[in-house]
C-alpha cells in the first residue's frame, strides 16, 4: 500500500491507501476523491486529472512524460511548474505519503 494525501482547494484533506503500480489518477477515482475526474481513463487525452505535486515531492515524482506538457495546456485551472497529469504518475513505495494538491476545477 502507498498512502496518498489529497489536499482540496479549501485546505481539507483526503487520505487514500493506493496500490503500488497504480496511477495517482486511478487511485483517486477508485477512492472517489472529489477533484480528479480522469475522463479519458489515463490515455492522456483529456487533462481532467490535473494536479499540483507538493514541492517537497517533486524530485521523487520525476519530470513530465512525453506529450504531457502539450495536454496540460488543456487543463481548466492554472498550470504551474508543479502541474502534472495524475494519470502519468505511477505509484512506487518511494511515493508513500505523497502530497497532491487539487485544482479549483477540472472541466
Amino acid at each position: 500500500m502507498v498512502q496518498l494525501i489529497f489536499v482540496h482547494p479549501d485546505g481539507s484533506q483526503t487520505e487514500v491507501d493506493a496500490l503500488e503500480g497504480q496511477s495517482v489518477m486511478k487511485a483517486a477515482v477508485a477512492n472517489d476523491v472529489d477533484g480528479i475526474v480522469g475522463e479519458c481513463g489515463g490515455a492522456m487525452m483529456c487533462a481532467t486529472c490535473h494536479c499540483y505535486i507538493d514541492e517537497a515531492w517533486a524530485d521523487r515524482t520525476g519530470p513530465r512524460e512525453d506529450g504531457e506538457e502539450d495536454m496540460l495546456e488543456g487543463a481548466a485551472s492554472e498550470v504551474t511548474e508543479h502541474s502534472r497529469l495524475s494519470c502519468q504518475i505511477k505509484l512506487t513505495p518511494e511515493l508513500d505519503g505523497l502530497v497532491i494538491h487539487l485544482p479549483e476545477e477540472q472541466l
Partner: protein
Amino acid sequence: MALAPLDQDITLDQLTLDPYPIYRRLRAEAPVMRVASAQRTFLTKAALTKLVKDDPVLFSSNDPNTPMKPAFRAHTLMRKDGDEHLAERRAINPALTPKRINSDWGPLYERLAAQYLDRLPRGEVVDMFDTLCGPLAARILAHILGIPEASDEEMQRWSQRLIDGAGNFGWRPEPFAASDEANDQMDALFQRLAPLRTAEPDGSAFSVMLTAEYPIPLSQVHANLKIAIGGGINEPRDALATAIYGLLDNPDQLAEVKAQEAWGKAFEEAIRWVAPIQASSRLVTADTELGGFDIPKGETVMTIQASSNRDEDLFENGEEFFVFRDKNPHQAFGNGPHHCAGAHIARRTVGKIILPMLFDRFPNMTLPDPAAVKWRGFGFRGPINLPVVLN
C-alpha cells in the same frame, strides 16, 4: 461460457425514434445483447462501455472496412489506433485547447454568438434549432478550423453528408455520391486556403497542422478537418438544443442555474441526459469475455454511452434532466484514446459563452409546447426542432 443472447425484435426505427425504454430494459435484463438489426453486440452498462473504450488493444477502432472510408475518402484518425492515431490527434490538439480559446478566440466567439442572437425575432414562435443552434455551431467551428470562408450552409451540408455517408452501412450509392460532392467542394476550399493559412499562421486547426515542425501528410490534414466538420457541428448543436429544452422544461432548475451561474453544470447534464453521440463501435481483436458471455474475435461491439449515462448503478433518476446532481460521471465525450478532442471547446463555447448569453438576453424565453419538440437518432441524437418564444 455461452454467446450473448440474440435479439431479433429491436428495429433500427425503434432505436431512432426513442431508444431509451429499450436501453432501460437491456440494462436490467441483458446488458450484453446481440442485436440482429444493427449487426452489433450492444453494451448498455457504464462499467462495460468504459472498460471497452479504455482497452484499445482488445477493442480496436482500426476497422478500415466501414463506410467511413468512402464517405471521407480517407482512413481517418477515428478509425486508427496507437501511434498512428496519436500522431494525427496531436497534430490538431494545439488548436483545441482552452488556453487557445481564452487567449485568442473567446472574444470572437462572444461576438459571433451575440450577432446570431441579435437577429432572432422577439415575441413570435421561432425554431431555435434552424436559426441558432445549427448555424452558430457551424460558424464557430469554421473559425476554429481556419476555414471561415465556408458559409454556415456549406458547413452544415458537408457535415450532414459526411455523417450520412459514414453511417451508410447498407452501402447504397446515393449517400456516397452526396459525400463525394461534399468532398470535392471541401478539397477545393482547402487547396485554395492552404497557402493563406501557411503564410499567415492564425492558430486555427488548419494553420497549426500546416505549419507544424513535423507536419502530418496533407491527405491526413484534410482528413482531420473533415472529421472535425463531420463531428463538430451536430454535437454542439444538439448539446445546445438539449440544454435549452431541459432548462425551459424545468423552470425551477433554470432559476437555480441562473442564481448560481451553473451553466457548465447545465451543459454537462444536457449531454448526460441525451448524449449527442449515443453509440460507438469497436472491433474485437481476440476472443474475450464481457459480462459473463463469450465475445469472439472479429465481432463488433457497440458501446451505448447513451445508456451508460442513465445507468442506475451511477445515476439516481437517470431518466430525468436534473442539473444539480452530486456527481455526473457521464461518458458523453467517450473514454480512452479517442476521448472527444473537442470536449474543451464544447464546454467553453456552449457552457460558458452561449448558454449564459442566450438566457441573459432573453430572460423570459418560453417553450410553449414541449410535446411539439421531436427527438430523433440512434447513432447521433438530439431535438430536430425547438420552437420557442423569445422575450
